């Protein structure tokens, strides 16, 4: 998991730099947003000059799943004072959640395990971002080498790896087609958020 974080973080630095973002902006994203898929999405939306509210709303939607994860972890952190809980929350990611859940399911009780792993991921993610910025600045014209497609390929990979049920495949295809059609029709600013909000309704109606 640490290796994956290093690779994805470096990829993020490269594609963000290639998209023309300033190194400081990229570093700030990894430091303060600290959410892989959202950061890639932001780069994509920035490169399409999407309006700021659309960017923020898209990130909010992508991260709504944290509500579920934090809700499921919160009984474990109940004894901590509020400020420690708010500190722990900042480092909650898919990876740290998966790791913590596994630890607690195996009967573990120590919260130090969560903090150590989650903060290590944060440090690694930011180091990887900086490596990527450095590499990305050295590559040159992105379209010529197909590097502009790296972000799309990353999203495709994230989706393929996230598929758990047959319904997920249908949802992903519907979302991609609706967003693509909206973009072709000239509604590219609202394409992603509209398609992304509509397609999960399939999960509500389909039994798994």
């Amino acid at each position: 998991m640490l290796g994956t974080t290093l690779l994805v973080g470096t990829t993020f630095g490269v594609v963000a730099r290639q998209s023309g973002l300033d190194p400081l902006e990229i570093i700030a994203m990894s430091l303060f947003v600290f959410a892989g898929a959202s950061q890639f999405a932001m780069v994509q939306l920035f490169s399409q000059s999407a309006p700021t509210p659309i960017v923020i709303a898209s990130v909010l939607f992508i991260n709504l799943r944290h509500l579920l994860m934090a809700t499921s972890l919160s009984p474990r952190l109940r004894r901590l004072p509020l400020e420690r809980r708010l500190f722990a929350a900042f480092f909650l990611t898919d990876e740290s959640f998966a790791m913590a859940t596994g630890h607690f399911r195996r009967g573990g009780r120590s919260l130090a395990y969560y903090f150590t792993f989650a903060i290590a991921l944060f440090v690694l993610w930011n180091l990887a971002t900086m490596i990527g910025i450095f590499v990305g600045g050295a590559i040159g014209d992105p379209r010529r080498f197909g590097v502009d497609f790296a972000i799309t390929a990353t999203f495709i990979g994230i989706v393929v790896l996230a598929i758990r049920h047959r319904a997920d495949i249908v949802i992903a295809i519907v979302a991609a087609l609706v967003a693509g059609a909206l973009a072709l029709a000239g509604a590219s600013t609202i394409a992603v958020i509209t398609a992304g909000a509509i397609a999960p309704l399939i999960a509500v109606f389909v039994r798994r």
Partner: protein
Amino acid sequence: MIWVAIAGSALATYLTRSLPFAVRFRGRLPPAATRYLEALPVAIIAALVGPAVIAPAGALTHGAEPLAAALVIATVAWRRSLLAGVIVGVVSVALLRLI
């Protein structure tokens, strides 16, 4: 504007992480809402892929992007590796655009 978007996104992300830790929810979400929230990330990320594959640069693709996308799907499904998928995607789209 980029800085405003970064600050807003950071705040939005932190709220989704911290709210359940700060506030005690009573009861549970209805299962339909849970299923919707679980499906959201896949849908949003797939929605980001759609325009980039079907309409790169705002116009209908000449075919390079959908073909490369299919190769990426096959690679990741087979190798279970994000990096392998990215490499195959970048190389294949660069070659396909030459045709």
